[in-house]
């Protein structure tokens, strides 16, 4: 009974391990593009004002494939979420040479965030061909921009994105004030018109 129990645990562990391996392999396979390229994005220098968006290309994959021709470019994007709609805005691009791709190269651009908080970045490796650029691979990452771009002391850093902390109450306060202004305006109009109309009627009847 004890042996059977141990066998079961062993089988479960083996199956779990197998499943984990398969999932990892599948994930790796999914991240490998059509040309067999693999692209990862890592973001460095979180404490500096400028953000270094650095992309590392896998040497092993590129060296195994024939990437001797063509030219490549890494395009960098930041996700904007204004007006409740999401969209990618290109913040820069860099041409990547084939030898660099074959030598586990790193390409990087600097980007100066305009506010702190979560920012989603994307990098796309594009194979450039005449009139038909194809995205070979892409990678997305969320980066927490800690440094206030205006140079606010790091110890006092909170999210400096406009109106995220006090905004809720400030917005409500301003909207209430605005509503009061509208109510006052129309009250005055109605009061004046009503008073004039009533008094005029009384005088005419008299």
């Amino acid at each position, binding site marked *: 009974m004890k042996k059977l129990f141990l066998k079961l645990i062993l089988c479960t562990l083996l199956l779990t391990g197998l499943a984990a391996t398969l999932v990892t392999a599948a994930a790796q396979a999914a991240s490998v593009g059509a040309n067999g390229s693999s692209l990862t994005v890592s973001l460095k220098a979180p404490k500096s004002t400028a953000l270094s968006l650095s992309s590392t290309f896998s040497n092993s994959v590129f060296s195994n494939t024939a990437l001797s021709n063509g030219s490549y470019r890494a395009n960098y994007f930041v996700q904007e979420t*204004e*007006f409740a709609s999401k969209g990618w805005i290109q913040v820069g691009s860099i041409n990547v040479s084939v030898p660099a791709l074959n030598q586990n190269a790193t390409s990087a651009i600097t980007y100066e965030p305009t506010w702190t908080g979560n920012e989603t970045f994307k990098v796309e490796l594009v194979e450039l061909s005449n009139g038909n650029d194809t995205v070979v691979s892409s990678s997305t990452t969320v980066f927490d921009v800690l440094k206030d771009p205006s140079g606010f002391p790091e110890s006092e850093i909170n999210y400096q994105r406009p109106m995220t902390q006090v905004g809720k109450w400030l917005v409500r306060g301003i909207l209430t004030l605005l509503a009061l*202004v509208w109510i006052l305006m129309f009250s005055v109009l109605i009061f*004046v018109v009503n008073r004039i109309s009533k008094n005029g009627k009384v005088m005419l009847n008299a």
Partner: protein
Amino acid sequence: MVVMDNKIESDQTDIVDSDADETWVNDVTESAMRSMRNKPGKAWWVAITLLGLVIVAGVIAWIYQLKHGLASAGYNDRAFWAVYIADVITFIGVSYGGAVTSAILRLTGQSWRAPLTRLAEAMALVTVIIGGTFIFPHLGRPDRFLNIVIYPNFSSPLFWDFMAILTYTVATMIFFYLPLIPDMAVVSKMLGEKKKLWQKFLYSSLSFNWLGSEKQKKALHRGLTIISLLIIPLAVSVHSVLSWAFALTSRPGWMETVFPPYFVIAALYSGTAMVVLVVAGFRKGYKLQRFITDRHFVRLGYLMVALGLVYLYLTFADLVTEGYTGITTGWIKQTVTGSYAPAFWFYVFAGELLPIFVVAFKKTRNVTGITVASVFVVISLWVKRLVIVLPAATQPLIAGAWGSYHFTWVSITITLAGVAAIPFLLMIMFRFIPLFSIEEMEEAGELGSVEQVSAHTQVLAKILAKYTGLEVTAPKASKTLTASETEGK
């Protein structure tokens, strides 16, 4: 004035050269309604046709821009904000100037304001509508305007801009309408039973049985006082929020703490100049020299120059604060000595120094001088807005060359259409409403405005001369006394 009789209705003769027996009330009423009663002359039709053509050309240019994109108006990725936002600020600015000038004069009980307030308030209403309309060509794609309502972004100054302009526009409409109530009643009485349906609605319905009783006057006065008090902070908020659309961006030349008062004063300055121009135009066009005198222009001229000096000081404060640190001086170099220098120095000489000299010297301190100075103030303040927008918008933030903006026929035509729309709408508007508030003019007469007091002094001088033989020099009256007034006194 109690509107119970149709005394004025019988007077259908040409009243430009008034008869000797006219009373002050009849004079005021006739002059106020000159734009409505007299059939428009040839000059009116020529002007309205030409202005209409410019507006049509503007609409065609906008359609062209919709089809070909903002590039057709000279915009590019390095000049993303340019002429249209300068137009928005300029038009809403002059509106603010008109409304606040009228509100302040009303609140401080300046009786000399009476012949000016209607023109100032009408100008405020017309220009805020035109200024608001310029947001559409500025947006490029007008359908995106709906996003501000559907997806309001409370952290964006643009949303608050929209709210502030909307609130201010409604307040301007009420501010314009309330003093019209007594005049609507006068017009309604004059038209009698012959009124057409639209006239019945416009004049009878909107006058709400106005008879000029004390209670009605009190209610109107109270309402106007509240709206006058309200419109000043509202107008300040509009221009402050408008300035934050620039100042809250991380862009040297725009991210300035001085911007809200800077914009507010510029609006008041250009607005006062525009009031002068509108008043001068209607004064000449409808021969209102008897009521709108040199004194009105001189006072507006003083006000204009005082505001101009404050604005000059703020311009200096803005430049010296940024320039002294030397951190972000690219836009200052561009403004003062670079490619925008001719525009900047045009503003300094034509928009600041010229009005000061015109008002300083007695020889030029007259209707013509102040009107010419006002033309330069309005134009140079528009140029100044361009100087605020363009150098900061076109400077590179990371690396690379400066961007540049070039006017195209599209942007010029659309801007000119906006300019033409001001006199066009005002000329049409005053075909339906009196040129100045009859009620306020009468009150001013009863209170004894400067012109009236001066006229009375002349009468006294004449009586003294008749009975004592003494020559007494009285101040020259701007209001020409009628025979009945002279005899009566």
